[in-house]
């Protein structure tokens, strides 16, 4: 009897496989595997080999692409571009997982020629796969959160309409900023700018390069591994869901005349300066002390 499960091809290009392993942290894989079947996956056993995928005609409903794409990149003796085109034409949807597959990401800087994401070279739209753009959903992140992968796939399976932003990312996950839900937000709001690494207190935006107020993502809404986030633990957000990732100089806030070069989304410099001026005029003892001080 033919399986009624939705068939997924998980295809990797130039990647560290971080999204593959992030997905293996999805806590409800038992239920997931009742609904979906991988015709090929980098770690999970599948009915077909990579050679089958390349050389035979295998039925497939969803194509997942992980990793940056280059016309030079060869996978099991076949150009990755040909493998993508072969399956892209027959599937219902294409899902890019991770910032590399979406925008080029970390491995855009590797030595392969013209390395980009599927539809974008950073923010710039590319034309190589224009013919399949309307089928594509981009799930950026380095890596992407497993809930975001699984719930997007469920939405496809349930034939629900997914509202996307201009970079093809589902708004339900990417309309937020990583700043939303950070436990350090009070220090940001009142401009307590004396953050030190290794402390529960303080906000990394002012000196330590935190990208959270200008990075789209749900890291502090849908916690990592169900327990935490980088910014909650005291590590700056690196902006890994954005097409500009990796910007570099991750642990320092670039400033012009003492003002952070990148301001929170939608906040004009004048607004920022006015608010900063007001908050700096006050001393809030509770926020200047250690959290556990009496």
């Amino acid at each position: 009897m033919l399986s009624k499960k939705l068939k997924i091809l998980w295809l990797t290009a130039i990647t560290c496989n971080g999204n593959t392993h992030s997905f293996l942290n999805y806590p409800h894989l038992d239920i997931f595997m009742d609904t979906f079947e991988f015709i090929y996956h980098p770690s999970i056993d599948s009915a077909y080999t990579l050679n089958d995928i390349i050389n035979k005609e295998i039925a497939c409903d969803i194509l997942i692409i992980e990793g940056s794409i280059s016309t030079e990149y060869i996978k099991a003796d076949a150009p990755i571009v040909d493998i993508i085109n072969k399956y892209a034409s027959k599937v219902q949807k294409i899902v890019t997982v991770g910032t590399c597959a979406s925008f080029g990401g970390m491995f855009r800087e590797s030595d392969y020629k013209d390395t980009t994401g599927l539809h974008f070279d950073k923010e710039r739209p590319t034309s190589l796969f224009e013919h399949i753009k309307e089928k594509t959903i981009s799930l950026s992140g380095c890596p992407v959160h497993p809930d975001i992968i699984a719930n997007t796939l469920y939405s496809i399976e349930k034939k629900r309409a997914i509202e996307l932003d201009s970079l093809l990312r589902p708004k339900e996950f990417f309309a937020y900023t990583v700043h939303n839900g950070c436990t350090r937000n009070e220090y940001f709001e009142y401009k307590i700018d004396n953050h030190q690494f290794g402390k529960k207190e303080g906000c990394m935006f002012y000196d330590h390069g935190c990208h959270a107020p200008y990075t789209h993502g749900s890291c502090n809404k849908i916690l990592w591994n169900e327990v935490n986030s980088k910014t909650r633990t005291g590590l700056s957000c690196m902006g890994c869901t954005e097409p500009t990732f990796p910007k570099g100089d991750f642990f320092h806030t670039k400033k012009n005349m003492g003002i952070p070069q990148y301001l929170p989304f939608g906040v004009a410099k004048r607004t920022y300066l006015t608010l900063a001026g007001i908050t700096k005029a006050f001393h809030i003892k509770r926020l200047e002390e250690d959290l556990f001080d009496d």
Partner: protein
Amino acid sequence: MIKLIEKIEGEAKLNFSFEKGLIDFVEIEFLSTRNIEKILQNKNALDALVITPRVCGICNHAHLMASVQALESCYEELELSNRAKITRELTLNFEIIHNHFKWFYLTIMPLMGYKQYLLKATQPSQLMAKAIATIAGQYPHTSYSIIGGVVSDIGMMDLIKVENYIDKTLKFFEQNLVHAKSDEFLECNNSNKLLSKEGDLPNLVNKIKDNGWSNVGKSYDRFIAFGENSYFKKGKSIKTRLTTNIYIDKVQEASNINSYAKNVLYKERYYEVGPLSRAMINKTPLIKDAHRKYGDSILSRILARVCEIPQLLNHSKKLIKQLDLSEPSYIKPKIDISDITALGSSAIEASRGFSKSDDRIREYSISRTEL
């Protein structure tokens, strides 16, 4: 004969050489590279802490630790609290355990003809990922370890949570891998006694024996480990001779014309790295016994890797008891790394081998030696 191997986070080809109808030598040809060393060139030195973990989705934490230690070795004087050292060791242990479970259930059991037990791989590995995330923010791909310590300031309640993840993982081990108390398993010094138990590990090892595979997978019978910490010892072992005086600068890397992977040698000789090497150097009784009986075969290698799970879980519990939360997690270096010109290096034990990083601030070299 050339065979494509898959599902190893990328693909590789095995080029076999035969002599008298038997495999004499196998060369691994990796088919692609990500050029992480090139990506690191001319970047701010601290960026290595974000970029280097992206070498690998499965041993990213080991690469973070190798990077931070390589950067710290550039300092003549750097203060690091005991709290930071223990915290780093804990999260590295959790990654090693995380990977051992995935390797056993996703790779080795299917290779030996069993079905792939996806959930047996993910259930305990997710617990270890939670333990890392509790301390380091997320898994994979955190950069929480920085020059001078760690960014997090975990509390007692966080540690209780981590201890519970450890206990739950130990329980999984005892209910699935070897049906015995982990203390009893760790005291066992006779591999035949272990094989009389029930569980996925004895079942697998017995199958290897029954099929006459216990001599398969032998290598040079030379072992080396560099990444010294409170559990792993540094040294090399050739048959029963153990030497602790080994030097990271004697590790040589050579480009391979057939593969993107480098050949890595110590004093011009190949050595095995990873769990079996660590066990031989640490003189783990059960693994020494298996080695006496089965040599450096796949059987000994599997036992060594699985044996590290309860060893490292128990050791992590001891480490947690040693943590003094009143110590600082991070001590700011007196000199900023951008004001230093230096060559630093380090080696870290990872799940499958060790990661060596050489950091020249503007150039970067990574040796990732695995089995």
